[in-house]
């Protein structure tokens, strides 16, 4: 217990260091360029303190509870001995990795739901759209996108196909979807690609990628271990656009049903 508390202290100090440049920039511009007092300064400062404390607790808790287990699990699940089961090693096919795909999917989904920056964007989008974009709807749409993306990214590491094929076809798909998506959602959908991969997702997903790239025969961890984050930032764009198209289509249908 005491070592968790001392770790917590160091994590909070480290977080303060991370936030310092932001605080300097904000207050520097506020004092020297804008030259206006900040309204509700006290409240804003206590908000900053809460954010710092919150991130400190959050990161230390993850480090104490979920990350070690998640990393260990990624190693164990990608261990050839576990994947081969009763089969002789050396004849593994891509389909023998089903537990890894399932784990990647579940991990992508669940870490995204817990991601604080996605929650922040979802709250804001909900306010700005006057409630027409649901906080949970957006978060679940993004989480499904990340889940599919990471599962596919894992499949890519297992099969060893080039990363850019997937990314470039993903881009083409996004552009086609953009042409048909409601205009209101486009910017938000593009944003949701970047916000999903942060404090919770990156460490666990990186462990999975590196574990897999070092155990699958013929893969180089330095070359093939990367790329999962790219999948995790691309696929939510598609799933959010799809979610918007689906809800628009549904709204249109119920409107029609009312008219007739």
């Amino acid at each position, binding site marked *: 217990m005491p070592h968790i508390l001392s770790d917590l202290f160091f994590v909070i100090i480290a977080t303060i260091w991370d936030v310092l440049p932001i605080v300097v920039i904000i207050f520097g511009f506020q004092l020297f360029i804008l030259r206006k007092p900040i309204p509700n300064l006290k409240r804003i400062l206590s908000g900053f303190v809460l954010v710092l404390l919150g991130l400190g607790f959050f990161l230390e808790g993850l480090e104490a509870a979920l990350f070690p287990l998640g990393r260990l699990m990624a190693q164990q699940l990608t261990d050839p001995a576990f994947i081969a089961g009763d089969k002789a090693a050396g004849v593994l096919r891509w389909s023998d990795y089903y537990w890894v795909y399932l784990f990647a999917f579940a991990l992508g989904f669940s870490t995204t739901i817990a991601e604080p920056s996605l929650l922040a964007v979802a709250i804001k989008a909900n306010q700005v759209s006057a409630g027409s974009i649901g906080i949970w709807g957006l978060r679940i749409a993004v989480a499904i996108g990340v889940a599919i993306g990471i599962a596919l990214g894992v499949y890519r590491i297992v099969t060893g196909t080039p990363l850019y094929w997937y990314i470039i076809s993903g881009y083409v798909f996004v552009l086609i979807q*953009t042409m048909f998506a409601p205009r209101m959602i486009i910017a938000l959908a593009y944003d949701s690609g970047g916000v999903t991969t942060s404090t919770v997702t990156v460490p666990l997903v990186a462990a999975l990628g590196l574990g897999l790239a070092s155990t699958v025969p013929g893969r180089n961890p330095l070359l093939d271990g990367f790329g999962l984050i*790219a999948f995790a930032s691309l696929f939510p764009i598609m799933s959010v656009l799809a979610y918007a198209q689906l809800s628009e289509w549904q709204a249109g249908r119920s409107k029609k049903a009312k008219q007739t």
Partner: protein
Amino acid sequence: MKSLKAIWTPVYDSLRDLLPIIVVIGFFQLAVLQQPIPNFGEIAIGILFVVIGLTLFVQGLNMGLFPIGENMAYAFASKGSIFWLLCFAFALGFGTTIAEPALIAVAKEAAIVAANGEMIANNEQAMDAYAQGLRVTVAVSVGFAIVLGVFRIVKGWAIQYLIVVGYAGVVIMTFFAPREIIGIAYDSGGVTTSTITVPLVTALGVGLASSIKGRNPMVDGFGLIAFASLTPMIFVMAYGMVV
């Protein structure tokens, strides 16, 4: 009674946000790997910490980060100086990225990859210099991205055209960049946007779009993060080609 509810509701929300992760890890540990959960007590405390942390973060978000981002946006809009607004945008993008721990980790690994690929000399000095250069490159690219994004909101350009150009840039660079750097470059787009930057930048964009006449916060306010995840890919591949 009421105050109890005011505390319990946010805690309950955080708990619900964490539940999927706990279920996934528990299921795979117990049912698939068929192993006991080690250090149960420590894990329980850790989960408690995560719940407390998430709860405090969301409170602080609404009290601190969102209001200050919007205040700054309104203040710049009423001051009417695009030059200073863009300076602020660059400083925010650059300043938040250069200190980002995830980026520092990625830059280190990238230096190892580069040394293994014999793109740079395999010694500590060359690797440090490479990692440092990469960090500055990514930070500049994020600064540039926020400037571009803010300028787009001011001008009211449709985001998809800029994104198309960005995608084309990524694809073209992919053909010319050394193979070793591609994976890292693609990943660097995702790691740059941290938990504190995202709410701040989002509030700035939405605030700008709602204070400029003729802009719709929903259509125009978002999109800053999208640029911040796209430009690092292009810049990092360029860095890989130059160095």
